[in-house]
Protein backbone atom coordinates (compact mmCIF):
# COMPACT_ATOMS: atom_id res chain seq x y z
CA UNK A 1 0.00 0.00 0.00
CA UNK A 2 1.18 3.52 -0.81
CA UNK A 3 1.32 5.87 2.15
CA UNK A 4 0.87 9.63 2.13
CA UNK A 5 2.12 10.06 5.70
CA UNK A 6 4.21 7.77 7.91
CA UNK A 7 4.82 8.74 11.51
CA UNK A 8 7.27 6.80 13.65
CA UNK A 9 7.89 7.32 17.38
CA UNK A 10 6.97 10.98 17.13
CA UNK A 11 7.31 13.21 20.16
CA UNK A 12 7.06 16.99 20.12
CA UNK A 13 7.99 19.15 23.07
CA UNK A 14 7.09 22.84 23.10
CA UNK A 15 9.02 25.27 25.28
CA UNK A 16 11.31 23.66 27.81
CA UNK A 17 9.38 20.61 28.90
CA UNK A 18 5.78 20.74 27.65
CA UNK A 19 5.35 17.41 25.86
CA UNK A 20 2.51 18.00 23.41
CA UNK A 21 2.82 14.70 21.52
CA UNK A 22 4.07 11.47 23.05
CA UNK A 23 5.40 8.59 20.97
CA UNK A 24 2.90 8.69 18.11
CA UNK A 25 2.96 5.99 15.42
CA UNK A 26 0.66 5.63 12.40
CA UNK A 27 0.55 5.44 8.61
CA UNK A 28 -2.00 7.20 6.43
CA UNK A 29 -2.85 5.72 3.03
CA UNK A 30 -2.97 7.79 -0.17
CA UNK A 31 -6.31 9.02 -1.49
CA UNK A 32 -8.26 8.79 1.76
CA UNK A 33 -10.01 11.32 3.94
CA UNK A 34 -8.50 11.04 7.37
CA UNK A 35 -10.02 12.72 10.38
CA UNK A 36 -7.84 13.82 13.28
CA UNK A 37 -10.39 13.73 16.05
CA UNK A 38 -9.94 14.80 19.63
CA UNK A 39 -10.92 17.48 22.12
CA UNK A 40 -9.35 20.95 22.12
CA UNK A 41 -5.79 20.77 23.38
CA UNK A 42 -5.41 17.09 22.40
CA UNK A 43 -2.47 17.86 20.11
CA UNK A 44 -4.24 17.79 16.71
CA UNK A 45 -2.84 21.11 15.50
CA UNK A 46 0.66 20.21 16.71
CA UNK A 47 0.43 16.94 14.80
CA UNK A 48 -0.76 18.81 11.70
CA UNK A 49 2.03 21.36 11.98
CA UNK A 50 4.52 18.55 12.24
CA UNK A 51 3.15 16.98 9.05
CA UNK A 52 3.31 20.25 7.06
CA UNK A 53 6.83 20.79 8.39
CA UNK A 54 6.28 24.02 10.27
CA UNK A 55 7.24 22.56 13.64
CA UNK A 56 10.56 21.12 14.72
CA UNK A 57 10.08 17.61 16.03
CA UNK A 58 11.82 16.55 19.25
CA UNK A 59 12.22 12.88 18.34
CA UNK A 60 10.94 10.37 15.80
CA UNK A 61 10.21 10.78 12.09
CA UNK A 62 7.49 12.16 9.88
CA UNK A 63 7.57 11.16 6.22
CA UNK A 64 5.23 12.65 3.65
CA UNK A 65 5.18 10.83 0.30
CA UNK A 66 8.46 9.22 1.31
CA UNK A 67 10.22 12.51 2.09
CA UNK A 68 10.95 14.14 5.46
CA UNK A 69 8.12 16.52 6.42
CA UNK A 70 8.85 20.08 5.30
CA UNK A 71 11.09 19.07 2.35
CA UNK A 72 11.29 21.67 -0.43
CA UNK A 73 9.68 19.29 -2.97
CA UNK A 74 6.67 18.82 -0.70
CA UNK A 75 5.83 22.53 -0.75
CA UNK A 76 4.23 22.05 -4.18
CA UNK A 77 2.36 18.90 -3.14
CA UNK A 78 0.99 19.81 0.27
CA UNK A 79 -1.51 22.56 1.05
CA UNK A 80 -2.26 23.74 4.54
CA UNK A 81 -5.24 25.55 5.98
CA UNK A 82 -4.34 26.87 9.42
CA UNK A 83 -6.81 27.22 12.24
CA UNK A 84 -6.30 31.00 12.21
CA UNK A 85 -7.84 33.02 9.37
CA UNK A 86 -4.51 33.09 7.44
CA UNK A 87 -5.79 35.26 4.60
CA UNK A 88 -5.46 39.04 4.34
CA UNK A 89 -8.49 40.81 5.86
CA UNK A 90 -7.61 44.10 4.14
CA UNK A 91 -7.73 42.58 0.65
CA UNK A 92 -10.77 41.43 -1.31
CA UNK A 93 -11.54 37.74 -1.72
CA UNK A 94 -10.35 37.88 -5.35
CA UNK A 95 -7.14 39.74 -4.47
CA UNK A 96 -6.34 37.14 -1.81
CA UNK A 97 -6.84 34.27 -4.22
CA UNK A 98 -4.81 35.96 -6.98
CA UNK A 99 -1.92 36.51 -4.59
CA UNK A 100 -1.87 32.97 -3.24
CA UNK A 101 -2.25 31.50 -6.75
CA UNK A 102 0.95 33.38 -7.71
CA UNK A 103 2.70 32.21 -4.55
CA UNK A 104 1.85 28.59 -5.29
CA UNK A 105 3.68 29.01 -8.57
CA UNK A 106 1.28 30.11 -11.29
CA UNK A 107 2.74 33.18 -12.97
CA UNK A 108 -0.52 33.88 -14.79
CA UNK A 109 -3.74 33.92 -12.85
CA UNK A 110 -6.53 32.95 -15.23
CA UNK A 111 -10.15 33.95 -14.73
CA UNK A 112 -11.14 30.29 -15.09
CA UNK A 113 -8.95 29.37 -12.14
CA UNK A 114 -10.53 32.09 -9.99
CA UNK A 115 -14.08 31.27 -11.06
CA UNK A 116 -13.54 27.58 -10.26
CA UNK A 117 -12.08 28.29 -6.83
CA UNK A 118 -14.79 30.78 -5.93
CA UNK A 119 -17.46 28.36 -7.06
CA UNK A 120 -16.00 25.48 -5.06
CA UNK A 121 -16.39 27.41 -1.83
CA UNK A 122 -19.56 29.22 -2.89
CA UNK A 123 -18.03 32.70 -2.72
CA UNK A 124 -18.60 33.97 -6.28
CA UNK A 125 -21.01 36.69 -5.19
CA UNK A 126 -18.59 37.95 -2.56
CA UNK A 127 -15.45 37.95 -4.71
CA UNK A 128 -15.15 41.75 -4.64
CA UNK A 129 -15.72 42.11 -0.89
CA UNK A 130 -12.99 42.81 1.61
CA UNK A 131 -12.35 39.74 3.75
CA UNK A 132 -12.69 41.88 6.89
CA UNK A 133 -16.32 42.56 5.91
CA UNK A 134 -17.24 38.87 5.66
CA UNK A 135 -18.81 36.64 8.28
CA UNK A 136 -16.67 34.07 10.12
CA UNK A 137 -17.95 31.24 7.95
CA UNK A 138 -17.26 33.17 4.75
CA UNK A 139 -13.72 33.99 5.92
CA UNK A 140 -13.24 30.31 6.63
CA UNK A 141 -14.31 29.49 3.08
CA UNK A 142 -11.81 31.97 1.60
CA UNK A 143 -9.10 30.30 3.64
CA UNK A 144 -10.26 26.91 2.37
CA UNK A 145 -10.20 28.20 -1.23
CA UNK A 146 -6.52 29.07 -0.75
CA UNK A 147 -5.84 25.49 0.37
CA UNK A 148 -7.51 24.23 -2.82
CA UNK A 149 -5.13 26.16 -5.09
CA UNK A 150 -2.86 24.12 -7.32
CA UNK A 151 -4.45 20.67 -6.95
CA UNK A 152 -2.24 19.50 -4.06
CA UNK A 153 -1.68 15.75 -3.46
CA UNK A 154 -2.16 16.22 0.27
CA UNK A 155 -4.50 18.77 1.84
CA UNK A 156 -4.09 19.41 5.54
CA UNK A 157 -7.09 21.27 6.90
CA UNK A 158 -7.17 22.37 10.52
CA UNK A 159 -10.81 22.63 11.66
CA UNK A 160 -12.14 23.65 8.20
CA UNK A 161 -15.81 23.37 9.07
CA UNK A 162 -15.86 25.36 12.31
CA UNK A 163 -18.48 28.10 12.22
CA UNK A 164 -20.16 26.90 9.03
CA UNK A 165 -23.89 26.34 8.68
CA UNK A 166 -25.07 22.74 8.13
CA UNK A 167 -25.88 23.28 4.44
CA UNK A 168 -22.43 24.58 3.63
CA UNK A 169 -20.80 21.95 5.82
CA UNK A 170 -22.61 19.29 3.80
CA UNK A 171 -21.45 20.91 0.56
CA UNK A 172 -17.84 20.99 1.77
CA UNK A 173 -17.93 17.36 2.85
CA UNK A 174 -19.15 16.46 -0.65
CA UNK A 175 -16.21 18.44 -2.04
CA UNK A 176 -13.80 16.59 0.29
CA UNK A 177 -15.23 13.25 -0.89
CA UNK A 178 -14.88 14.32 -4.56
CA UNK A 179 -11.26 15.34 -4.00
CA UNK A 180 -10.52 12.09 -2.19
CA UNK A 181 -12.14 10.07 -5.04
CA UNK A 182 -9.81 11.85 -7.46
CA UNK A 183 -6.78 10.72 -5.45
CA UNK A 184 -6.15 13.64 -3.10
CA UNK A 185 -5.34 12.68 0.47
CA UNK A 186 -7.11 14.87 2.98
CA UNK A 187 -6.27 15.29 6.65
CA UNK A 188 -9.09 17.08 8.41
CA UNK A 189 -8.91 17.92 12.07
CA UNK A 190 -12.07 18.36 14.04
CA UNK A 191 -13.28 18.24 17.61
CA UNK A 192 -16.75 17.45 16.35
CA UNK A 193 -17.42 13.72 16.70
CA UNK A 194 -20.42 13.78 14.32
CA UNK A 195 -18.11 14.71 11.43
CA UNK A 196 -15.83 11.78 12.14
CA UNK A 197 -18.16 9.22 10.60
CA UNK A 198 -17.71 10.87 7.18
CA UNK A 199 -13.99 10.06 7.10
CA UNK A 200 -12.40 6.93 5.61
CA UNK A 201 -9.95 6.70 8.49
CA UNK A 202 -9.83 8.18 11.95
CA UNK A 203 -6.91 9.13 14.13
CA UNK A 204 -8.22 9.64 17.65
CA UNK A 205 -5.96 11.67 19.92
CA UNK A 206 -6.16 12.81 23.51
CA UNK A 207 -3.58 14.45 25.78
CA UNK A 208 -0.93 14.10 23.09
CA UNK A 209 -1.38 10.35 22.80
CA UNK A 210 -2.82 8.23 20.02
CA UNK A 211 -5.96 6.50 21.27
CA UNK A 212 -6.72 4.61 18.07
CA UNK A 213 -6.28 4.63 14.30
CA UNK A 214 -8.78 2.77 12.16
CA UNK A 215 -11.82 3.22 9.92
CA UNK A 216 -14.96 4.52 11.67
CA UNK A 217 -16.79 1.20 11.15
CA UNK A 218 -13.91 -0.85 12.56
CA UNK A 219 -13.68 1.44 15.56
CA UNK A 220 -17.42 1.16 16.21
CA UNK A 221 -17.31 -2.61 15.89
CA UNK A 222 -14.24 -3.24 18.02
CA UNK A 223 -15.50 -1.04 20.83
CA UNK A 224 -19.12 -2.13 20.48
CA UNK A 225 -20.23 1.50 20.20
CA UNK A 226 -23.08 3.11 18.32
CA UNK A 227 -21.42 6.50 17.83
CA UNK A 228 -17.86 7.76 17.48
CA UNK A 229 -18.38 9.79 20.64
CA UNK A 230 -19.27 6.66 22.58
CA UNK A 231 -16.31 4.90 21.02
CA UNK A 232 -14.01 7.78 22.00
CA UNK A 233 -15.25 7.70 25.59
CA UNK A 234 -14.72 3.93 25.80
CA UNK A 235 -11.19 4.26 24.45
CA UNK A 236 -10.45 7.02 26.95
CA UNK A 237 -11.81 4.82 29.73
CA UNK A 238 -9.61 1.91 28.60
CA UNK A 239 -6.48 4.06 28.50
CA UNK A 240 -6.93 5.45 32.03
Amino acid at each position, binding site marked *: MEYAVKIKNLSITLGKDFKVLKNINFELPVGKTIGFIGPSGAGKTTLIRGIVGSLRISSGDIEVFGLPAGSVTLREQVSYM*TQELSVYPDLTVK*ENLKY*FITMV*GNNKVSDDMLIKLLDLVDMTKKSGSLVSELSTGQKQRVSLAVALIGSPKLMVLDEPTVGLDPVLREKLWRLFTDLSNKGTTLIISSHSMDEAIRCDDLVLVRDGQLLAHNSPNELLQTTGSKTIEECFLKLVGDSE
Partner: protein
Amino acid sequence: MSVHKTFATSKRVLGQLRHDRRTLALIFIVPPVLLIILKYVFQGESKVFNSIAPMLLGIFPMIMMFLITSIVTLRERSSGTLNRLMTMPISKSDLIFGYAIAFCLLGLVQVLISGGVMLGLLHVTVLGGTLATMIIAVLSAFLGTSLGLLTSAFARSEFQAVQFLPAFIFPQLLVCGLFITRIDMAKLLQWFSDIMPLTYSVDAMKQVTLYSSWNDNLIRDLIVVAGFAIVALILGSATIRRQE
Protein backbone atom coordinates in the same frame (compact mmCIF):
# COMPACT_ATOMS: atom_id res chain seq x y z
CA MET B 1 14.09 33.77 -5.59
CA SER B 2 11.30 34.56 -8.07
CA VAL B 3 10.89 38.06 -9.51
CA HIS B 4 7.25 37.29 -10.17
CA LYS B 5 6.54 36.33 -6.56
CA THR B 6 8.54 39.29 -5.25
CA PHE B 7 6.52 41.77 -7.29
CA ALA B 8 3.28 39.96 -6.43
CA THR B 9 4.17 40.48 -2.76
CA SER B 10 4.90 44.19 -3.34
CA LYS B 11 1.60 44.54 -5.18
CA ARG B 12 -0.22 42.74 -2.39
CA VAL B 13 1.30 44.97 0.32
CA LEU B 14 0.44 48.13 -1.63
CA GLY B 15 -3.04 46.71 -2.25
CA GLN B 16 -3.53 46.27 1.49
CA LEU B 17 -2.56 49.90 2.07
CA ARG B 18 -4.74 51.08 -0.84
CA HIS B 19 -7.77 49.76 1.02
CA ASP B 20 -6.68 51.70 4.12
CA ARG B 21 -7.08 55.24 2.84
CA ARG B 22 -6.79 56.90 6.24
CA THR B 23 -3.33 55.43 6.78
CA LEU B 24 -2.29 56.51 3.29
CA ALA B 25 -3.54 60.04 3.93
CA LEU B 26 -1.61 60.19 7.21
CA ILE B 27 1.58 58.92 5.53
CA PHE B 28 1.43 61.50 2.78
CA ILE B 29 -0.06 64.52 4.54
CA VAL B 30 1.50 64.54 8.02
CA PRO B 31 5.17 65.15 6.99
CA PRO B 32 4.48 68.20 4.76
CA VAL B 33 2.11 69.62 7.39
CA LEU B 34 4.84 69.25 10.04
CA LEU B 35 7.30 71.01 7.74
CA ILE B 36 4.86 73.88 7.24
CA ILE B 37 4.34 74.17 11.03
CA LEU B 38 8.12 74.16 11.54
CA LYS B 39 8.49 76.93 8.98
CA TYR B 40 6.30 79.16 11.15
CA VAL B 41 7.96 78.01 14.38
CA PHE B 42 11.18 79.44 12.97
CA GLN B 43 9.42 82.43 11.42
CA GLY B 44 12.17 84.92 12.24
CA GLU B 45 15.03 82.50 11.68
CA SER B 46 14.81 81.23 8.13
CA LYS B 47 18.46 80.08 8.20
CA VAL B 48 17.75 77.66 11.03
CA PHE B 49 14.67 76.32 9.25
CA ASN B 50 16.66 75.99 6.03
CA SER B 51 19.21 73.75 7.78
CA ILE B 52 16.70 71.65 9.76
CA ALA B 53 14.06 71.01 7.09
CA PRO B 54 16.20 68.83 4.76
CA MET B 55 17.34 66.75 7.74
CA LEU B 56 13.70 66.15 8.65
CA LEU B 57 13.04 65.11 5.07
CA GLY B 58 15.47 62.26 5.74
CA ILE B 59 14.04 61.46 9.16
CA PHE B 60 10.30 61.38 8.35
CA PRO B 61 10.37 58.54 5.81
CA MET B 62 12.58 56.46 8.07
CA ILE B 63 10.29 56.84 11.09
CA MET B 64 7.08 56.29 9.11
CA MET B 65 8.34 53.28 7.19
CA PHE B 66 9.78 51.80 10.40
CA LEU B 67 6.38 52.03 12.08
CA ILE B 68 4.31 50.80 9.16
CA THR B 69 6.65 47.95 8.26
CA SER B 70 6.96 46.68 11.80
CA ILE B 71 3.18 46.64 12.28
CA VAL B 72 2.37 45.13 8.87
CA THR B 73 5.04 42.45 9.31
CA LEU B 74 3.93 41.71 12.85
CA ARG B 75 0.37 41.21 11.56
CA GLU B 76 1.74 38.83 8.94
CA ARG B 77 3.55 36.87 11.63
CA SER B 78 0.61 36.72 14.06
CA SER B 79 -2.34 36.19 11.67
CA GLY B 80 -1.17 32.84 10.32
CA THR B 81 -0.49 34.12 6.78
CA LEU B 82 3.28 33.94 7.23
CA ASN B 83 2.96 30.42 8.57
CA ARG B 84 0.86 29.47 5.56
CA LEU B 85 3.21 31.19 3.09
CA MET B 86 6.18 29.35 4.59
CA THR B 87 4.58 26.02 3.64
CA MET B 88 4.30 27.20 0.02
CA PRO B 89 6.97 27.01 -2.69
CA ILE B 90 8.35 30.50 -2.06
CA SER B 91 11.68 31.72 -0.77
CA LYS B 92 12.01 34.10 2.16
CA SER B 93 13.67 36.60 -0.19
CA ASP B 94 10.45 36.79 -2.25
CA LEU B 95 8.69 38.09 0.82
CA ILE B 96 11.43 40.30 2.23
CA PHE B 97 12.28 42.01 -1.05
CA GLY B 98 8.60 42.27 -1.89
CA TYR B 99 8.10 44.20 1.32
CA ALA B 100 11.19 46.34 0.78
CA ILE B 101 10.12 47.34 -2.75
CA ALA B 102 6.57 48.17 -1.66
CA PHE B 103 7.64 50.35 1.26
CA CYS B 104 10.42 52.07 -0.69
CA LEU B 105 7.84 53.00 -3.35
CA LEU B 106 5.58 54.30 -0.62
CA GLY B 107 8.53 56.22 0.84
CA LEU B 108 9.30 57.65 -2.60
CA VAL B 109 5.78 59.05 -2.96
CA GLN B 110 5.97 60.47 0.55
CA VAL B 111 9.33 62.06 -0.20
CA LEU B 112 8.10 63.50 -3.51
CA ILE B 113 5.18 65.19 -1.73
CA SER B 114 7.19 66.41 1.28
CA GLY B 115 10.15 67.40 -0.91
CA GLY B 116 7.85 69.24 -3.29
CA VAL B 117 6.36 71.20 -0.41
CA MET B 118 9.77 71.89 1.14
CA LEU B 119 11.51 73.01 -2.03
CA GLY B 120 8.59 74.53 -3.92
CA LEU B 121 6.29 76.00 -1.29
CA LEU B 122 8.61 76.66 1.64
CA HIS B 123 11.54 77.74 -0.59
CA VAL B 124 14.22 75.76 1.22
CA THR B 125 17.53 75.96 -0.64
CA VAL B 126 19.38 72.71 -1.16
CA LEU B 127 22.65 73.30 -3.01
CA GLY B 128 23.14 69.63 -3.87
CA GLY B 129 19.92 69.56 -5.90
CA THR B 130 16.59 67.81 -5.83
CA LEU B 131 17.78 64.42 -7.12
CA ALA B 132 20.41 63.94 -4.40
CA THR B 133 17.88 64.99 -1.75
CA MET B 134 15.37 62.46 -3.05
CA ILE B 135 17.95 59.66 -3.20
CA ILE B 136 18.90 60.20 0.45
CA ALA B 137 15.27 60.36 1.56
CA VAL B 138 14.38 57.14 -0.29
CA LEU B 139 17.43 55.41 1.21
CA SER B 140 16.18 56.54 4.62
CA ALA B 141 12.80 54.99 3.82
CA PHE B 142 14.62 51.78 2.87
CA LEU B 143 16.51 51.89 6.17
CA GLY B 144 13.26 52.37 8.12
CA THR B 145 11.67 49.46 6.24
CA SER B 146 14.59 47.12 6.94
CA LEU B 147 14.77 48.05 10.63
CA GLY B 148 10.99 47.64 10.91
CA LEU B 149 11.18 44.16 9.38
CA LEU B 150 13.94 43.20 11.78
CA THR B 151 12.43 44.58 14.98
CA SER B 152 8.98 43.13 14.24
CA ALA B 153 10.48 39.72 15.03
CA PHE B 154 10.93 40.81 18.64
CA ALA B 155 7.41 42.18 19.14
CA ARG B 156 4.57 39.98 20.28
CA SER B 157 1.86 42.64 19.91
CA GLU B 158 1.24 45.87 18.04
CA PHE B 159 1.66 47.74 21.34
CA GLN B 160 5.18 46.37 21.62
CA ALA B 161 5.92 47.15 17.97
CA VAL B 162 4.96 50.79 18.51
CA GLN B 163 7.14 50.95 21.63
CA PHE B 164 10.16 50.00 19.53
CA LEU B 165 9.98 53.49 18.01
CA PRO B 166 11.03 55.27 21.23
CA ALA B 167 13.34 52.37 22.07
CA PHE B 168 15.24 52.09 18.77
CA ILE B 169 14.67 55.27 16.80
CA PHE B 170 14.37 58.08 19.36
CA PRO B 171 17.85 57.53 20.86
CA GLN B 172 19.26 57.79 17.33
CA LEU B 173 17.22 60.92 16.77
CA LEU B 174 18.68 62.56 19.90
CA VAL B 175 22.30 61.95 18.93
CA CYS B 176 22.16 62.19 15.11
CA GLY B 177 23.13 65.86 15.00
CA LEU B 178 19.68 67.31 14.45
CA PHE B 179 19.51 69.21 17.75
CA ILE B 180 23.18 69.90 18.33
CA THR B 181 26.36 69.24 16.39
CA ARG B 182 27.73 65.84 17.33
CA ILE B 183 31.15 67.23 18.25
CA ASP B 184 29.56 69.17 21.15
CA MET B 185 28.03 66.06 22.70
CA ALA B 186 29.56 63.89 25.44
CA LYS B 187 32.22 61.56 24.03
CA LEU B 188 30.21 58.45 24.86
CA LEU B 189 27.24 59.76 22.88
CA GLN B 190 29.51 60.64 19.96
CA TRP B 191 30.69 57.03 19.84
CA PHE B 192 27.10 55.86 20.07
CA SER B 193 26.05 58.16 17.21
CA ASP B 194 29.01 56.92 15.14
CA ILE B 195 27.50 53.44 14.99
CA MET B 196 23.88 54.51 14.43
CA PRO B 197 22.57 54.66 10.84
CA LEU B 198 20.31 57.70 11.28
CA THR B 199 23.44 59.79 11.97
CA TYR B 200 24.63 59.12 8.42
CA SER B 201 21.23 59.77 6.88
CA VAL B 202 21.04 63.16 8.63
CA ASP B 203 24.66 63.94 7.78
CA ALA B 204 23.97 63.15 4.11
CA MET B 205 21.15 65.67 4.14
CA LYS B 206 23.51 68.23 5.71
CA GLN B 207 26.05 67.60 2.96
CA VAL B 208 23.50 67.95 0.21
CA THR B 209 22.17 71.17 1.76
CA LEU B 210 25.60 72.79 2.02
CA TYR B 211 27.49 71.54 -1.04
CA SER B 212 26.54 71.64 -4.69
CA SER B 213 28.64 68.61 -5.68
CA TRP B 214 28.78 65.05 -4.35
CA ASN B 215 31.70 64.90 -1.91
CA ASP B 216 33.39 61.95 -0.20
CA ASN B 217 31.40 62.44 3.01
CA LEU B 218 28.12 62.28 1.14
CA ILE B 219 29.13 59.10 -0.68
CA ARG B 220 30.33 57.54 2.60
CA ASP B 221 27.02 58.47 4.25
CA LEU B 222 24.99 56.90 1.46
CA ILE B 223 27.05 53.71 1.53
CA VAL B 224 26.68 53.42 5.31
CA VAL B 225 22.89 53.95 5.21
CA ALA B 226 22.45 51.47 2.34
CA GLY B 227 24.80 48.99 4.06
CA PHE B 228 22.87 49.19 7.35
CA ALA B 229 19.59 48.72 5.48
CA ILE B 230 20.86 45.65 3.60
CA VAL B 231 22.30 44.07 6.75
CA ALA B 232 19.03 44.71 8.63
CA LEU B 233 17.12 43.18 5.71
CA ILE B 234 19.28 40.05 5.77
CA LEU B 235 18.91 39.78 9.56
CA GLY B 236 15.15 40.37 9.20
CA SER B 237 15.03 37.55 6.67
CA ALA B 238 16.80 35.27 9.16
CA THR B 239 14.07 35.94 11.74
CA ILE B 240 11.48 34.42 9.40
CA ARG B 241 11.55 30.72 10.10
CA ARG B 242 9.85 27.90 8.31
CA GLN B 243 10.06 25.74 11.43
CA GLU B 244 9.36 26.77 15.00
